[in-house]
């Protein structure tokens, strides 16, 4: 191959082992979806469903917490959320993905998306000084009794069948 032909082939991407790489799955994720998968999905499941007794289910449920200001804050004050290595912007985007896409149909009508400044403030006050299971239980009971949340929110923390 002449120098000119080699240059032309390089420019057109004809050299190298492109064929095996082309067989790789090419599923591409949105940035918040990728961050959710890398930071949350191992336990919560790719689609927000795992073992509901051990890990809270998010699918069709996560948005109910936005019925209450305390519930809205709760999601960004959870220790693994607040201590995440993601930036405030990335974390706000992940929370919105979790609440409005994975939790589709559960957020109250007209619920505002999370913004970085809000998440940045809440994550400075992680829920480490409370008994987290009791804090959640109380919040969930309020959401079920006074708002529209379904009883399925109670599933987490109950004994394995």
């Amino acid at each position: 191959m002449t120098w000119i032909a080699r240059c032309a082939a390089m420019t057109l991407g004809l050299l190298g082992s492109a064929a095996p790489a082309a067989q790789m799955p090419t599923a591409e994720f949105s940035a918040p979806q990728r961050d959710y998968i890398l930071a949350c999905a191992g336990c919560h499941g790719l689609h927000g469903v795992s073992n509901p007794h051990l890990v809270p289910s998010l699918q069709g449920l996560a948005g109910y917490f936005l019925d209450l200001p305390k519930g809205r804050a709760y999601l960004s004050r959870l220790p693994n959320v607040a201590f995440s290595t993601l930036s405030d912007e990335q974390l706000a985007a992940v929370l919105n993905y979790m609440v409005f896409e994975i939790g589709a149909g559960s957020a109250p009508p007209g619920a505002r998306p999370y913004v970085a400044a809000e998440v940045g403030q809440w994550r400075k006050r992680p829920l480490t000084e409370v008994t987290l299971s009791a804090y959640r239980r109380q919040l969930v009971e309020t959401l079920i009794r006074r708002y529209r949340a379904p009883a399925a929110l109670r599933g987490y923390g109950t004994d394995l069948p």
Partner: protein
Amino acid sequence: MSKSPIDQLGERLTRKLAGYSSRRSFLARLGMALSATPVLPLLPVARASAADAPKTDFERYAQTTDPTKCTYWKYCASDGVLCSCCGGGSHTCPPGAEPSPISWIGTCVNPENGRSYVIAYRDCCGKPICSAGKSCFCDGGDRELPTYRSPLNNDIIWCFGKASATYHCSTAALLGLADGARK
């Protein structure tokens, strides 16, 4: 009206420039520069700067052909016995064992295209530990974090959420691309 010294200097320089250069030579040089531009990003300097991070020890020896070896590219953070040595596959459990619904998720670089992929490290559970050969016991640790960052730690037996928490072997399921995320 006499010319100002600045005008005279400008005229002298312009005439001198016109004397030893031509529009044709300028066009030739411009053409060379333009045609070389697409090749420049392929030079090693550009490729080095495009890489996200220096290669890890695992990545230097990673291969894409034999999933029964610890060097198989998807096992960059596998810590345990490979299910592919135990009657299962790189992402499937052997008969009688079942995947844990909870796993930890990391990324590995495919050496064929240099791209980063999302990998779910799912343990297969419900049977005693697989007694495969020593070469099937792997200890990859790329992008793993210490135990106090438990969601990203591979020393944990990830057999939660099933009737039996007995560990049998480890798989590495490919979920998709980790780089080049859509906005």
